[in-house]
């Protein structure tokens, strides 16, 4: 049967940007309020799953040409790298630090190395969920 998904696809094109923006907000808010790498990654992959529901797998792999297994590996590398990086300063494994910097747009901002660890968590969550979903979705051909 020929389907006509115009309404779903149009709404998806708008809401996906809201979902991605919200996941980034949650990711950066994680230090001082609820949120963080795990929820941010899950919401990002939920946005990609919405794209997969509205369009087909082939279109999405052209739009987002990532090998999600490599994304998960990169995330693990980030997380391990922040841990090993603490050896450079002669402190125990996974010791994090922070400092206040004067950025051009944001003004005085607190930057912490824990964000890099959270980036690792984020990338692993996105990579693993998308790998699971894409491998299940590809099975029918």
């Amino acid at each position, binding site marked *: 049967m020929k389907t006509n998904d115009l309404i779903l696809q149009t709404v998806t094109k708008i809401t996906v940007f*809201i979902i991605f923006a*919200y996941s980034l907000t949650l990711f950066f808010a994680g230090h001082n309020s609820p949120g963080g790498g795990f929820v941010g990654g899950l919401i990002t992959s939920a946005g990609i799953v919405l794209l997969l529901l509205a369009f087909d797998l082939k279109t999405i792999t052209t739009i987002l040409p990532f090998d999600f297994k490599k994304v998960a590996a990169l995330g693990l590398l980030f997380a391990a790298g922040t841990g090993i990086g603490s050896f450079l300063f002669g402190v125990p494994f996974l010791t994090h630090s922070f400092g206040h910097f004067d950025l051009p747009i944001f003004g005085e901002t607190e930057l912490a190395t824990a964000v890099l660890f959270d980036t690792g968590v984020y990338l692993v969550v996105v990579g693993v969920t998308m790998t699971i979903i894409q491998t299940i979705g590809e099975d029918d051909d």
Partner: protein
Amino acid sequence: MNEILEIVFGVIILFGALLSVLSAIGVLRLPDVYTRNHAASKSATLGVLSILLGAFLYFWVEEGYMNARLLLGIVFVFLTSPVAGHLISRAAYNSKVPLWDKSVQDDLKMKNQDEKAKAR
């Protein structure tokens, strides 16, 4: 002044809660999938929107805290909930869920029969 505003926000939230109850009653009472979907998607959407709006206004006026997530939630629910209703309705029609027996008109019926005849 603040007491009056508190009462106004309370009325907005109560209005939303009453609309949600109304949509639940509609889901229980209406005869078939399509009318139930009509009740569930419309009045529940407006109910949730007014509850969110009431909470947003309360925290804005009382605590001076403007929560953009509630505004984003209002936009998001307003966009997606009717589309969800549309998709559920269409899925029901395409899997041949019957209309209420007192329905008088089914404009898609002829179109589906034409497509079936073409496919034959």
